[in-house]
């Protein structure tokens, strides 16, 4: 913002660098020109013959006096010209202006006022340093913003070097700040923290668990980073590493130190903002104390949860879900779990999972939401499910499913592949989607509070990633119908006088709408993989478009096909045939689907086309049956040459009505043959 403003005002510069610490923002601009360029502007005014008012207006707008104008010859006569000279301005004045504007208009995401003032800044602004240095020395830029006047002084570290000092330029500033225990550059602070943490971890035989986000955050909290490392009290080491890490990171902003041989978290590193005479002993002791309190809480939760789960099983822990509302129109979490269990059992055979195991996993996969640990650390949902399920003696992929059934969480998150996990993951998301579609709460362009887009994408990735073959339309329809029936019985008041059959009749359209939603999500997903939306549209027109694995296979083959020369030209040929045929059908009011007879073929090209179509049809049908779409595409690719030759040599609209009708029927064969593979009408371009 600043450099743009300076350039706009006529200065140039060689380089600029920005720095930040928790207490200051700094901008250094090098090679700034000493004055802005002088600017000479010529403005054309009214004709000499124009009335005086026009001239007065011109004089006003240019701010000149009549004597300063020039009279020049123009093609229409004589015209007044104003030559406005703007001399260069000293950099200091321009910098002051630009900075004041930038400070007042700074785009903080959240800003505040303080005291009795009106200026807004991220936190109260105490002082401004603004110094312009050249070969003559340093001058303070005459910048004033409200009651703050820029000077040449700054202060070092709040505790270690608080006294003010004056500087003569940026190099002086940076060096003296460093001596004043302030590391100006955030990247340098990050590097120092990482280096020191690694060294201290190594000294204890440990390594630092990388955490780029935490590193950036912590570097923004200190001006003088001092890394202090400690070991976790052995009493807490029985806690799962994720619990230790989450607790330390979110509450304490600690880095976790891991034993490279065992993978266990055994230590922590914190970053203090000062050196002390006792080398951080007091600070470390304090941090240790807080950590103990936090981990005691975590251990209390862990032991309590394990006790519950061992005595009452995961089902016992899940009892409370009956009192937790999922959505006021869809009932409790417990009711949802029952639906997911039934659905998981149904989906299991499609993904190669044992139905009983899938049902078992679904039944217990939400139990951990009632645990004390997840109550304290909601981000550990799923993970704690895995630990507690294992502790309650579940196995055969069931504990893993508790953790994995939430995935994939984002477009780049890993897709589960273990069958039990896949079954529950699909069931969980499909239940959510069919539930909301049943009560007509769909996402809008700007709002998707229940993350339904993400759920649909998750199902898509689960299906495609595992090659699952299932007809979603039937699945959705049955589920939505079931839910509507359940709702009708349970909340009949909500439906008023509507008949049960009318309520259930909504299932089919809702299911179609949900499938269309899936298709939209699929298009977005495949677009990122290089498959165009019109290619998908061409395949959506084919039967079985609710079997996503089949659909994508077809789309991939079509996309590859269209990239070839044959493919592109075949499409053109198809279009040509289709257009002629459609025109004729509209004009004549009939469909030319009777079937063409080769005996009416007059030319060699016509006969060749007949033969080619025979050959193609013979190849396509079996290929489609075995889902060998590449072979099917190759079969219609072979039509390209005969079709091109046909159109070159043959006139479809022959004067002979019989011949013409036969040729139109032949075009229909082309259309029908291609339509077996994909709806090429949808291909753009």
């Amino acid at each position, binding site marked *: 913002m600043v450099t743009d403003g300076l350039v706009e005002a006529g200065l140039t510069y060689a380089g600029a660098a920005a720095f930040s610490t*928790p207490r200051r923002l700094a901008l250094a601009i090098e090679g700034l020109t000493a004055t802005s360029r002088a600017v000479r502007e010529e403005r054309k005014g009214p004709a000499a013959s124009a009335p005086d008012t026009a001239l007065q207006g011109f004089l006003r707008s240019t701010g000149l006096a009549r004597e300063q104008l020039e009279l020049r010859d123009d093609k229409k006569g004589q015209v007044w010209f104003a030559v406005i000279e703007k001399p260069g301005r000293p950099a200091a004045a321009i910098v002051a202006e630009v900075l004041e504007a930038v400070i007042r208009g700074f785009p903080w995401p*959240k*800003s*505040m*006022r*303080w*005291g*009795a*003032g009106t200026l807004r800044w*991220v*936190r*109260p602004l*105490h002082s401004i340093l603004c110094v312009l240095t050249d070969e003559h020395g340093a001058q303070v830029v005459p910048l004033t913003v409200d*009651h703050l006047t820029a000077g040449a002084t700054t202060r070092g570290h709040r*505790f270690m070097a608080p006294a003010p000092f004056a500087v003569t330029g940026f190099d002086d500033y940076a060096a003296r700040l460093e001596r004043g225990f302030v590391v100006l550059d955030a990247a340098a602070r990050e590097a120092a923290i990482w280096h020191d943490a690694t060294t201290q971890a190594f000294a204890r035989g440990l390594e630092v668990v990388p955490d780029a986000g935490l590193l950036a955050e912590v570097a923004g*909290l*200190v001006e003088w980073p001092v890394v202090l490392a400690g070991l976790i009290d052995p009493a807490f080491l029985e806690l799962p590493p994720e619990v230790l890490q989450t607790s330390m990171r979110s509450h*304490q*902003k*600690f880095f976790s130190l891991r034993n490279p041989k065992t993978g266990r978290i055994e230590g922590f590193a*914190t970053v*203090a*903002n*000062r050196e*002390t*005479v*006792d080398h951080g002993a*007091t*600070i470390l*002791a*304090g*941090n240790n*104390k*807080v*950590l103990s*309190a936090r981990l*005691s*809480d975590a251990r209390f939760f862990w032991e309590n949860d394990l006790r519950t789960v061992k005595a009452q099983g995961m089902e016992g822990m899940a009892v409370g879900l009956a*009192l937790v*509302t999922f959505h*006021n129109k869809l009932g409790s979490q417990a009711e949802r779990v029952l639906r997911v269990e039934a659905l998981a059992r149904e989906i299991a055979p499609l993904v190669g999972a044992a139905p009983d195991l899938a049902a078992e996993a679904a039944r217990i996969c939400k139990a951990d939401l009632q645990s004390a640990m997840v109550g304290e650390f909601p981000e550990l949902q799923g993970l704690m499910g895995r630990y507690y399920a294992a502790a309650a003696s579940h196995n055969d992929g069931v504990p893993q499913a508790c953790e994995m059934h939430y995935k994939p969480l984002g477009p780049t998150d890993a897709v589960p592949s273990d069958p039990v996990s896949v079954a529950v993951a699909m069931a969980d998301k499909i239940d959510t989607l069919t539930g909301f579609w049943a009560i007509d709460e769909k996402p809008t362009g700007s709002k998707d509070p229940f993350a339904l887009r993400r759920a649909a994408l998750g199902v898509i990735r689960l299906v495609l990633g595992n090659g699952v073959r299932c007809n979603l339309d039937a699945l959705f329809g049955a589920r939505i119908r079931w839910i509507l029936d359940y709702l009708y019985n349970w909340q009949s008041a909500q439906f008023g006088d509507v008949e049960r059959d009318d309520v259930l009749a909504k299932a089919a359209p809702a299911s179609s709408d949900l499938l269309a939603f899936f298709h939209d999500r699929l298009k977005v997903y495949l677009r990122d993989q290089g498959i165009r939306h019109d290619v998908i549209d061409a395949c959506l027109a084919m039967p079985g478009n609710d079997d996503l694995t089949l659909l994508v296979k077809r789309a991939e083959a079509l996309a590859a096909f269209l990239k070839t020369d044959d493919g592109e030209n075949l499409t053109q040929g198809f279009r040509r045939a289709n257009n002629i045929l459609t025109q004729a059908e509209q004009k004549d009011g009939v469909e030319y689907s009777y079937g063409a007879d080769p005996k009416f073929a007059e030319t060699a090209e016509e006969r060749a086309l007949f033969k080619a179509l025979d050959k193609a049809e013979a190849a396509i049908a079996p290929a489609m049956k075995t889902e060998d779409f590449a072979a099917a595409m190759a079969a219609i690719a072979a039509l390209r040459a005969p079709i091109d030759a046909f159109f070159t040599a043959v006139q479809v609209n022959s004067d002979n009505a019989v011949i013409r009708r036969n040729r139109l029927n032949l075009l229909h064969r082309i259309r029908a043959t291609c339509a077996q593979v994909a709806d090429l009408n949808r291909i753009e371009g």
Partner: protein
Amino acid sequence: MTDTATAPRSFQEIILRLMTYWGARGCAVLQPYDMEVGAGTFHPATTLRSLGTRPWAAAYVQPSRRPTDGRYGENPNRLQHYYQYQVLIKPSPPDLQDLYLGSLAAIGIDTALHDIRFVEDDWESPTLGAWGLGWEVWCDGMEVSQFTYFQQVGGHDCHPVSGELTYGLERLAMYVLGVDHVMDMPFNDPSARIPLTYGDIFRQTEQEYSRWNFDQADTDMLLRHFADAEAECARILAAPQPDKAGRHIIMAHPAYDQCIKASHLFNLLDARGVISVTERQAYIGRVRTLARACADAFVTTQAGADRCESLTDA
């Protein structure tokens, strides 16, 4: 940890030192508000006095009740009743951070030995219709204070801006005194003739209130009382003016009392587990409506209006 000559020896000594410190810096050392509140911010000395243009400087201890935090006195750090120390200065002085650091030194925290960090934080109270920007203050990895510049309260922009400091007294004191379990903390001087620990005073009440808050409180009664407080607040503010003797008195404070009651009743209902996730927002909205109405009323009164003399530059 601290120089023994200046180290405080009890919980009450820490409170007394804070009172002395802020009193010496010009705050009116007020007394706690005599109603159940969830935080020092609810005291009219903060919520109402942060409104309008009149300058203000107050400091006080505030017993705060958070029913959902009850642990029957067994958790070393968590209580359903605890003390906050609250400071409100309006307009916020430019050296407020330094003043705050001075208060830490006053209670025995040597900034040369401890790591004090200001961690950027934003504060908001949906029930009071208030928000501000500021910091959490951390001492050696533990949050000890909230430091906020109020931007809006009760739906009104704050001009001038108040600086609010809130100390979690038990937590801070446990650290300064080197105590691991709150119940073990000496309340009065340990060498007093009748030494009393925090547990001697509060362990039983923590048990009693935890039981009542979680299991026993009559939820029908609480719901009725919530509705009563809500209605009464509105009725008070709608009272005809002037009164029978011709006085024009807008009862902003009595109305605000009802708002505070409603807020506490909501916290009790929450602890009883009868407020569902969807209902929660509705209740918070109802309390916020009361808070806004009280704020609207307060700014029309003398205490909430402009000073006669102009403000000196802060």
